């Protein structure tokens, strides 16, 4: 039985096509369609319900020691009001989840995790608690709305003056149109934008006032379909695709978030594995067709790996895919072939990210 987010009725009223996703009923698209929603985010602005994401809190004198032990990134030097990405690994170096850590206070951290992994994550986190720390899963009390696109600044400025100025920073207890919120300059689209955390009961009012404030700026509601095409176009990794229990963060190319000079769960396995045997690459499809996940990639006739995500990227106007292949089996500019349901399609190895905001 799927759960509804606090915004379910808003999605139905807007004509959203509702599908089950990660245990929730969410809109995959609205009547405008995935391409129009995608283009709105690249050129104007889009509004997403991401309330399905999970939120947990570590609080207490040993909160920092706990997260530094269980996460691959280093939180020792981090200012209050900043956000930092991390992986959480198993002992064998496989990935439990990827997540964002918000430093709320010297002894308080908010962690945002993937909806599909929430229960697994909470179990793993609880199992490894030590010292003086209080842990709580507040997912069901919190709604999250993402406002993404070049017009996001103009829209949010209509509702508050307290706007975080740096990427990956946030302000807590901001009044946005009279609703207490945590306002974060983050997102999963490759575009400038904000993520707004509110109490679940305030979500419909926040959603509506954002839509109203954005009406003159071309703001449109966007579903899961556009969320996926936008993140793929911006080459952002997705758990279960670019990394999972069997793909290490180093293979996924997420070295920037793995600090091997500190101690954390999975470190020894990552060190023992040495240089990654596989690497994440970007592919631009040259032939006719769309590469999806789990399709075999061949270089000069030899199987070198498989695609992890792929779709048509509306803003770039072509089909792109990410793939996990043997390290050093290809270089930028090389041509490879992808087996798409028995048909070999040519693709070129191109730099990541495919799309970068100017």
């Amino acid at each position, binding site marked *: 039985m799927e759960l509804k987010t606090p915004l379910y009725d808003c999605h139905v009223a807007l004509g959203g096509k509702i599908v089950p996703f990660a245990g929730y009923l969410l809109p*995959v*698209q609205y009547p405008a*369609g*995935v*391409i129009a929603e*995608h283009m709105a985010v690249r050129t104007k602005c889009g509004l997403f319900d991401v309330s399905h994401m999970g939120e947990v809190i570590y609080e207490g004198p040993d909160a920092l020691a706990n997260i530094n032990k269980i996460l691959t990134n280093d939180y020792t030097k981090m200012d209050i009001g900043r956000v930092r990405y991390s992986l959480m690994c198993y002992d064998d170096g496989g990935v439990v989840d990827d997540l964002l850590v918000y430093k709320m206070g010297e002894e308080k951290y908010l962690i945002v995790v993937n909806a599909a992994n929430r229960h697994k994550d909470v179990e793993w986190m609880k199992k490894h608690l030590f010292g003086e720390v209080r842990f709580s899963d507040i997912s069901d009390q919190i709604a999250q709305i993402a406002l993404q696109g070049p017009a996001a600044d103009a829209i949010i400025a209509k509702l508050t003056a307290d706007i975080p100025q740096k990427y990956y920073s946030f302000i807590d207890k901001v009044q946005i149109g009279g609703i207490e919120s945590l306002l974060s300059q983050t997102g999963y689209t490759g575009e400038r934008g904000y993520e707004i955390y509110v109490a679940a009961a305030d979500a419909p009012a926040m959603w509506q006032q954002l839509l109203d404030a954005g009406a003159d700026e071309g703001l449109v509601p966007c579903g899961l*379909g556009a969320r*996926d*095409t936008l993140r793929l176009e911006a080459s952002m990794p997705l758990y279960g695709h670019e990394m999972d229990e069997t793909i290490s963060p180093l293979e996924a190319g997420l070295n920037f978030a793995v600090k091997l000079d500190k101690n954390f769960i999975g470190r020894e396995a990552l060190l023992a594995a040495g240089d990654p045997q596989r690497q994440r690459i970007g592919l631009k499809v040259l032939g*006719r*067709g*769309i590469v*999806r996940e789990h399709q075999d990639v061949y270089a000069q006739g030899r199987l070198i790996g498989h695609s992890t995500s792929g*779709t*048509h990227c*509306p803003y770039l106007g072509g*089909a792109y895919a990410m793939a996990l292949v043997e390290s050093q089996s290809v270089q930028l500019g090389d041509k490879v072939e992808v087996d798409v*349901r028995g*048909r070999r399609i040519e693709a070129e190895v191109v730099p990541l990210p495919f799309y970068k905001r100017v």
Partner: protein
Amino acid sequence: MTNPSDYQYVRSHEWLCYVDKDTVRVGITDFAQKAMGDLVFVNLPQVGDMTTAGEPLCDVESVKSVEDIFSPVSGEITAVNEELADRPELINSAPYEAWIAEISNITDTEDLLDAAAYEAVCAEEE
């Protein structure tokens, strides 16, 4: 959008219309294109291939997924709509004009429905 009354339909949401007494054009219905969403690629079948009623004729890709299109008749593919290679979105904007393949020498057909019967099928699925 209304389903043309001079077309025939199958339960798997394809349409056909006769262009002469032994040749049909085949496409997908408005109901089907709405369900799939924005189409971004049509993997057109090959002229000269034989196709079998109820078996996949070709596949189309939306932004989200790939979908098989089933042949409503058995016969020989005598033409494909090359315009769809560059403009798959024509299926979204004009599903009853954007034919995919022309099939001749027809030897068998699926159970064909008229527009009213097909609309009853769609109503059940909604």
